[in-house]
């Protein structure tokens, strides 16, 4: 398993297109989300030059996981599109807080794995750890995420301390919620418990 991370400006055009194509297969074709698409690529207004990505690759060097990281000091998904998930609480805006979105770990080359099993896989755990470490390297102490409910199980399995920012809501038939994640290493979180 190979991980790479970097901002739009730091990654090659080929890598970015593979990532957007992978997101199209996961979010549009597999999960049926209604998102903006362009020629088989899933990209939106938050895929900007300063956006940071984490990508996981399988043994064939094909993408089998991705995550998107955005600083909350600039427009981000939760603040702009889903503020209702915070149940009236203040929208985060701090260099200490980064948003994790478009998290996916569907391994299309693993025929034994149900695509809907994505949050149970070792790829998902490793990708989550790498994503949180990458955000921490950019100064994040906490992450906020807009995600399907299944990510809570993954966070717990990976040893991260997390709590909900508000109740889940059903949007376009999909239950999503906002969740706070402590960016300290799982071992530190366990010791602080």
């Amino acid at each position, binding site marked *: 398993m190979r991980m790479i991370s970097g901002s739009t400006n730091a990654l090659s055009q080929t890598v970015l297109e593979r990532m957007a194509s992978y997101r199209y297969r996961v979010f549009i074709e597999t999960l049926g989300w209604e998102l903006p698409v362009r020629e088989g690529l899933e990209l939106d207004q938050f895929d900007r030059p300063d956006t940071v990505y984490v990508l996981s690759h399988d043994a064939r060097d094909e993408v089998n996981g991705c995550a998107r990281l955005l600083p909350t000091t600039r427009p981000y998904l939760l603040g702009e599109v889903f503020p209702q998930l*915070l*149940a*009236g*609480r*203040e929208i*985060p805006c*701090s260099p*200490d*807080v980064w948003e994790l979105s478009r998290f996916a770990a569907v391994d299309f080359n693993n025929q*034994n*794995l*149900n695509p*809907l*099993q*994505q*949050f*149970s896989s070792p790829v998902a755990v490793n990708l989550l750890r790498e994503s949180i470490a990458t955000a921490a390297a950019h100064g994040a102490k*906490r992450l*906020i995420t807009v995600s399907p*409910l*299944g990510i*809570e*199980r993954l966070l*717990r399995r990976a040893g991260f301390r997390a*709590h*909900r*920012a*508000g*109740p*889940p809501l*059903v949007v376009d038939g999909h*239950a999503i*919620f906002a969740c*706070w994640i402590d960016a300290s290493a799982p071992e530190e979180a366990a010791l602080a*418990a």
Partner: protein
Amino acid sequence: MPGDEPLRLPLTRLRRLELQHILSGIDRDSPPHEEGAFQTVITGFTEWVSTAHPIVTLGWDWQMQARGNQPWLCRIGTPRSNLLLQSHGRKKIDWIEHERLLQCFVDSLGWETESLKHIAVLYRNVRAPHCQV
């Protein structure tokens, strides 16, 4: 960082809140069927929220079991929430005790019938693949 902390609440106050069911579902991320066999364990999740302030969100997983000749739901695992329970003196409760108290609280709610009813409505037109004719 305002708003990033869990809701700190004594258990006594949590017990006074009315919770209402918002959604339940069956897990769709189960392992695929093996040839000649199919999965017999049905698991899922249920979500509840307080009807008044403070807004408390609680969700937990369940496993379907038989009670007599009727299906019944049993909580599995620890509930997920926006809460951090406090003691009477508003002192911090350690994480293990917090999780134990949440489990006991959920088990005392009497949530099973409402969640079962919701699941029955949601999946009344769904047949398992091996039952298709």
